[in-house]
């Protein structure tokens, strides 16, 4: 035994590397982790990831363990033969810890969600952000948020400043609901013309009810099993006649767009061509039309507009009109003549004075197996019931009168109809598990204030005086250096079941920087690797269109972690080689 004067530093160092410290640290980390998993069961994965595993104090605890391992290994220097297993195991664990911290600091982890036929370049990152987009000056401001890691705080009162000229805008989040329940209340005292009807469908024990709004592209119709329920407006008698007539069969083609320029007193019909992006001159006018896209069954999803199926359930055509006044884009729906007034996405910014109508064979009649409520020009309602083979039956539709569908086993009635309906959403919180988040935001500038609820990935626009601000609560996005296009997605089930046996995505990766284009098949357990990024098949969505979910990961720490694994294994192997003689 050496007896030397030891400094405080040496004593501390010795304590750092001591066995009791090691055992204590191991147990402490174990306890924290155990608590973390219980916390997760209550508040959800996102919360625990942010609050525990990625928090500074937990990383500090791990770093402390690393220090303990290092000191314990160094203390025994110079190492003898019998120290080899011990030193190797400790170095290995140290490498794993360093690799882990490197990966957490420098790595990228996110998801790519790509509908079939679409191209995506932005990763959805785990972190949630609040986005503010004042339309003047048109800049986008992104604020990282942290509400889900303290999901039990429902009144965070956190303020974000949008630094624009004219004094700036303050956004205050005064409510955070981790698992919001949203109930819709519809009243008849909206100021604007907005027909809304509440329909109840009843099949034996089952009852379903739905609010339909004829002027809302997403809410004019609903599906219940095989039955479609639609609410349409017939602006003219001619339209009403067309809607109630039996469907004509065997019609093909993409339909015809009719454009009327009231100022020029010109009306032209342009068939929708099979090819896009070709400019067509509209005879006798200074206008030109360019068709951009055609949908047989349009649906609006989080990823934008998609084509749900080949069936003509909701035909629509997208085109631009170019004239002396400028350019304007249109989206015209065959089943909704009233939407043709929607120009691009901003209703108030009409550039070109034109009336647009889109006629498609699908609106020559109505879809089969459907209940179609039609508002007549006289504001009264009629119901058109259609059968499988194009049979139709028309009746006047009165509130609270029960109707039986002649070809489907189904009874239905309406119990409220408001020509000027107004929907209001009521938010309440169910529990603290992060499942369906909702934020209440107050936007304020020097003179005005506006309030709104935000749910995930649904932008809402608010008006502050003359300034319009679009707000959104969504996942942070990160731009990949490459783009990925989903060419095809397939899923195979176990024979005779609906259980997925495997699924795969045919993708095309394009790297414009390097001029590389790769076509690959990504399957479960068989990722695509490119420039340090790995693209893994992690999931899929079947509705409304087949959509693949790829997880994308770049982790520079992985080689260190793997080296650590190998070192630990080497340590264990040497343990058996350099073992002390058998204790007895």
């Amino acid at each position, binding site marked *: 035994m050496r007896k030397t004067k030891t400094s405080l530093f040496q004593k501390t160092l010795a304590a750092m590397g001591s*066995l*009791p410290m*090691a*055992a204590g640290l*191991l*147990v402490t*980390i*174990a306890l924290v*982790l*155990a608590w*973390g*998993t*219980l916390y*997760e*069961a209550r508040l959800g*994965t996102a919360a*625990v*990831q942010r609050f525990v*595993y990625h928090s500074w104090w937990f990383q500090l605890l791990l770093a402390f363990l690393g220090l303990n391992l290092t000191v314990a290994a160094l203390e025994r220097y110079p190492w003898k033969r019998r120290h080899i297993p011990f030193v190797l195991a400790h170095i290995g664990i140290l490498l794993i810890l360093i690799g*882990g911290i490197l990966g957490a600091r420098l790595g990228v*982890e996110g998801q790519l969600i790509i509908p079939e036929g679409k191209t995506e370049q932005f990763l959805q990152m785990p972190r949630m952000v609040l986005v503010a987009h004042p339309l003047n000056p048109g800049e986008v401001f992104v604020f990282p948020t942290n509400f889900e890691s303290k999901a039990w705080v429902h009144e965070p009162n956190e303020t974000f400043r949008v630094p624009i000229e004219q004094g700036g805008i303050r956004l205050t989040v005064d409510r955070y609901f981790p698992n919001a329940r949203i109930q819709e209340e519809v009243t008849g005292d909206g100021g604007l013309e907005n027909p809304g009807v509440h329909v109840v469908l009843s099949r034996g*024990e*089952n*009852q379903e009810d739905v609010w339909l709004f004829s002027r809302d592209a997403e809410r004019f119709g609903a599906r219940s099993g095989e039955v479609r329920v639609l609410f349409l407006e017939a602006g003219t008698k001619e339209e009403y006649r067309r809607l109630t007539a039996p469907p004509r069969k065997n019609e093909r083609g993409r339909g015809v767009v009719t454009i009327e320029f009231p100022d020029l007193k010109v009306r032209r019909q342009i068939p929708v061509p099979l090819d896009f992006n070709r400019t067509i001159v509209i005879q006798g006018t200074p206008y030109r039309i360019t068709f951009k896209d055609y949908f047989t069954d349009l649906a609006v999803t989080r990823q934008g507009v998609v084509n749900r199926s080949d069936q003509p359930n909701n035909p629509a055509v997208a085109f631009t009109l170019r004239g002396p006044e400028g350019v304007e884009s249109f989206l015209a729906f065959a089943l909704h003549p009233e939407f043709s007034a929607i120009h691009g996405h901003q209703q108030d910014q009409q550039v070109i004075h034109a009336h647009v109508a889109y006629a498609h064979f699908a609106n020559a009649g109505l879809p089969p197996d459907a209940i179609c409520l039609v508002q007549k020009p006289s504001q009264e309602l009629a119901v058109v019931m259609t059968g499988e083979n194009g049979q139709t039956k028309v009746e006047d539709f009165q509130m609270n009168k029960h109707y039986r569908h002649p070809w489907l086993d189904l009874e239905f009635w309406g119990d409220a109809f408001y020509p000027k309906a107004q929907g209001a959403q009521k938010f309440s919180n169910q529990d603290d*598990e992060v*499942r369906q988040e909702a934020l209440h935001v107050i936007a304020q500038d020097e003179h005005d204030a506006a309030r709104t609820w935000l749910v995930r990935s649904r932008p809402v626009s608010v008006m502050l005086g003359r300034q319009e601000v679009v707000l959104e609560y969504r996942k942070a996005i990160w731009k990949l250096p490459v783009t990925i296009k989903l060419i095809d997605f397939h899923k195979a089930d*176990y*024979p*005779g*079941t609906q*259980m*997925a*046996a*495997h*699924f795969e995505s045919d993708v095309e990766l394009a790297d414009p920087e390097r001029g590389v284009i790769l076509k690959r098949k990504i399957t*479960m*357990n068989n*990722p695509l690797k490119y420039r340090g990024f*790995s*693209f*893994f098949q*992690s999931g899929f969505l079947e509705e409304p269109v087949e959509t693949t979910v790829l*997880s*994308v*990961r770049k*982790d520079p720490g*992985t080689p260190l*972690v*793997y080296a650590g*694994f190998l070192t*630990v*294994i080497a340590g*264990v192997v040497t343990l058996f080689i350099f073992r002390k003689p058998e*204790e*007895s």
Partner: protein
Amino acid sequence: MMRRRARGICAIFSLLVFSLLSAGFTLSPHAFQTLRRLAIQHNGRVKPFDTFARETLRFITGSERLGSEHPVQTVLAIVAEPEGWQDRALIAVPFVPLREKLGLARTTTHVSYNHLVETRTLMRMLPAIVEKQGRQEKLSMLEQETLDAYERFVALSGLFTQRMNLVPPATGDAWLPVSEHQAIQPQWTGLLDALRAGRPEAIEQPAQALSAILRSANPAAVPAQWRLDLELFYNDLSPFHVARIFYLLAAIGLLFNVVSKGKVLTAAMAALLAGFLMHGAGIVMRVVLGGRPPVSNFYETMLWLPFVAVAISLIFERIYRVGYFGLASAVLAMIVLVLADSLPLEPYLSPVVAVLRSTLWLTIHVLTVVASYGALSLAVGLAHIYGWLYLKRGPRHPALRSLDLYLYRALQVGVVLLAAGIMLGAVWANASWGRYWGWDPKETWALITLLWFLAVLHGRFAGWMNGAAVALATIAGFFLLLMTYYGVSFYLVGLHSYAGGHAKPIPPLLIAYLVTEAAFMFAILRKELL
């Protein structure tokens, strides 16, 4: 050779069956053999009718047999004469709050088809649940159990309406229901009429005819005869029940051996070895039949865990020849095998979810991790022997010194396997999810268990844990192991949850165990401190 033996055993078995018959009709041995060999597609696999009958009865009623009658007999009776069965309480309702919802007494375990149809309470609960599922909301335990009960109802109604995929398809891989296939109808109704008529000798001919026409629909789609025979052999033998009996004998012998100092060691070890071989043969048969690695669902891990524990104990017994390892592993294996059959787990070769489908790394990962559970459970068994001797014979008992070493060795093996298993899991996760570590509850709990046992090893190495303390810490570590292995799969969420099922109420047996164990630990601790 296997086949002849299989036939022999089947013959003995069917004799047994006929002495115990209770249905309205009987099958001749020959008809019975023909009918149970019919190939049927069910739950994503083509299997013999025998297996289908067992699985379906177990799924609906919770047990493979109604009384002593053979499942094939019962299922055929249900198919042939549904009217008689619609009023019998067949559908299991294990969840007490659901019984109350359905208007049953708290003690009523089963409900009849007609009761569900007439009251419609169950059906009325479904739309709300399905809607909730559609919104991707988490279902409560009651809602999960309601769906389960509904699925049992559907399975039973499937028997009533003859929705059984017995007809091999000409093309594609989805077999066709026998009730919807015109060409098969004469033979099928012929068999049903014969069954209803109830004369054993009259059933033989239609059974043969049906078997022939089904096979001729597409002989290539029907599994090879040896596969069907092997599966029947496996069903009849139930190798794990046999193994369990050997383990019981071994445990009794080895216990006696501890008390009487080495008199019956050889015989007891022979019983252990016999159990082990039977256990291994059972696992091999499952691998051959399922065409997949031996640990693809929770039930199979409960076969693999004790198998590894016994294997390790046999290796240690070769080195030390003491009987303690054997005793610990025999008791452990017996308990785990009994539990595997009595817990509400699915013992069948059902399909595996897509992410768990055969990758080499995954297989090695699961085998290693479950093997580490086996080794650690063996250590827990040794810790109990240590504690028992410590309490009965006092801290100075000579066997304790060597038991301390054995416990240490078993812990070392377990810790090395667990660390390796976690690392292999990381390698697999990196290969298939793109991240080697994601703080998933299962990974986290495996890490917690590892950290605990590492702390124990360090504590022993530092000299501030004696044998009793290590034994106590090992038993405490078993609680963590139970949480990792069982608790996480059923009570916490996460990626690994597809290996388990939805949450089930905590079984009273588990609570009783925890209380007993706590009392045992307290007794050791008191003696240690005094």
